[in-house]
């Protein structure tokens, strides 16, 4: 993105106040149009950033933001010393790791396979079908998971029983939590994730393949030496963006799939902030947890971007 360079006002001449007034007047309507959006960002994005300072205070709803006393890093200390911290860190990182290992490559493989299909009607039909789940709400996805997997008449367990097996309580069994989350993600987003790769693949020059065929390359070689390199930069950009989300697992999905029996593996930073802040009212403490999460995310994005550049890739900045 062109403006992601973090510099402001590199205009050569310094503007005098009268020049500023003249330009404001000239573009009066432009600034009036800009105002609602600007106010939106200031109120709903920047006021909460300022409000995040309550992580260093003892915020009480009655005393308000200004009246609450400063406590420094107390909430952060409490959080890092809390035995829950390692449980949350483990659950969060494991889900992210599984996501990276099992979900991240899935759209790439799927796009490569789709790219090999030459009957365009067949390709379009498959694309139409596999994009559908992206638009379905997480509540519906979780609901479908429930009605299919429940031990009370769910089709999967009915099937297991009809084969003489013992029913498995997928929804409550902690061992099934992570596989279920990853499977849901693959089902919902794998097809949609192919779009960006298919777009990159559509831009590959056909002559490259023709030249490769002349050189005697088989389809495997063509895929390895032409198709895959052509989407390498896309893969790296997505990987960098993904790094920023390592501590975020998607609140809705985790929250919806969490229940009393699988809390031990299901509790992650995202849901912890909600439970501690909204359910239990520890505003300052949960803000500190959220702030920790945001900061790690920013550091990881910039860090992986730096690393990508170091290895000669283009990066996102």
């Amino acid at each position, binding site marked *: 993105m062109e403006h992601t360079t973090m510099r402001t006002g590199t205009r050569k001449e310094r503007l005098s106040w009268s020049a500023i007034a003249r330009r404001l007047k000239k573009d009066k309507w432009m600034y009036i149009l800009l105002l609602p959006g600007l106010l939106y960002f200031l109120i709903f994005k920047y006021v909460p950033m300022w409000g995040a300072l309550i992580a260093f205070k003892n915020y009480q709803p009655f005393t308000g933001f200004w009246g609450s006393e400063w406590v420094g890093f107390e909430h952060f200390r409490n959080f890092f010393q809390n035995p829950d911290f390692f449980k949350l860190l483990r659950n969060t990182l494991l889900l992210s790791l599984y996501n990276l290992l099992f979900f991240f490559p899935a759209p790439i493989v799927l796009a490569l396979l789709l790219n090999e299909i030459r009957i365009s009607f067949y390709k379009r039909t498959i694309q139409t079908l596999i994009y559908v789940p992206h638009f379905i709400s997480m509540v519906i996805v979780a*609901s479908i998971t429930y009605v299919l997997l429940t031990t009370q008449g769910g089709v999967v367990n009915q099937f297991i029983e009809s084969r003489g097996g013992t029913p498995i309580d997928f929804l409550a069994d902690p061992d099934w939590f992570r596989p279920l989350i990853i499977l849901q993600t693959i089902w919902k987003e794998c097809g949609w994730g192919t779009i960006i790769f298919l777009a990159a693949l559509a831009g590959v020059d056909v002559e490259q393949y023709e030249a490769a065929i002349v050189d005697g390359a088989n389809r495997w070689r063509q895929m390895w030496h032409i198709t895959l390199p052509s989407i390498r930069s896309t893969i790296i950009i997505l990987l960098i963006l993904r790094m920023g989300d390592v501590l975020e697992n998607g609140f809705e999905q985790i929250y919806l799939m969490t229940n009393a029996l699988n809390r031990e593996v299901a509790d992650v930073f995202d849901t912890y902030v909600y439970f501690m802040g909204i359910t239990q009212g520890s505003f300052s403490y949960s803000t500190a947890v959220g702030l920790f999460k945001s900061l790690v995310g920013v550091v990881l994005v910039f860090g992986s971007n730096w690393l990508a550049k170091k290895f000669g890739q283009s990066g996102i900045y």
Partner: protein
Amino acid sequence: MNKHYRTVPSTIFDVLNYTLLGLFALVTILPFIYVVSGSFATEAEHTQKAFFLIPETFTLAGYQYIFSSNTLFKSIGVSIYVTVVGTLTNLLFTVTMAYPLARRDLMGRNTVLNLVVFSMLFSGGLIPGYILVRSLGMLDTYWALILPGAISAFNLIVVKNFFQELPAGLEESARIDGCTEIGVLWRIVLPLSKPVLATFGLFYAVGHWNNFFNALLYINDATKWPLQVLLRQMVMLSQISLGDSSNLDPTFVQPPEQTVKMAVIVVGTVPILLVYPFLQKHFAKGVLIGSIKG
């Protein structure tokens, strides 16, 4: 890529590949098909048969049950209201902000753009946002579902880039003909941007219809629940093995069975499937406009 040697391994690969992708597509939509047919099946069929795709006895009992009280109607109404008003708000805010930002010579433009981009990287988090909405008095109002997400920074930048690429000559000639800035936006730019507006309108609308998180956070009053929250209460929290049916709406005290649950899921899914052909027409465009600059 149409020139492959017709070798034996190549043909084997093709057969495998076509089959595999066909199966994947089938597996993707199978849950939907099963839930739809299950919603018309009798409870007996659910408990006796391991798997079926066409119900033996066709019944509307599930639908009759869920529409027997007006709770479901009401929350569908809430969802429709929030989706319509929310999407119009989104488009209004996005367009009015994107248009001035598309003017490269506008003083202060870079500052505002940096402000927008930074908000994509870093956020104050859940709790400060919640406290803000609460202190604005928006808890338990539909504004809480509309205003906090009025502009998506990503969409804003894509729309801005689109405006920037419109031929400058058109706007210039309109201005020479005495059109005001607002007039140029309304008469020249917006008509040219119809496909983009349709794309983002649909994205925003689907986002509103599907949103569960904001309602969970901001709407405690059960009579104001949008469909997604009610869906969860009916389908998921009635799980007997999982307990917690204490906050169920009184009209649903009787635990809904499979047929009823599937009927509710169908009701929540059908609106999305109805707009899906339009979505499909536009979404690739939307995603790609975004990634060109990205």
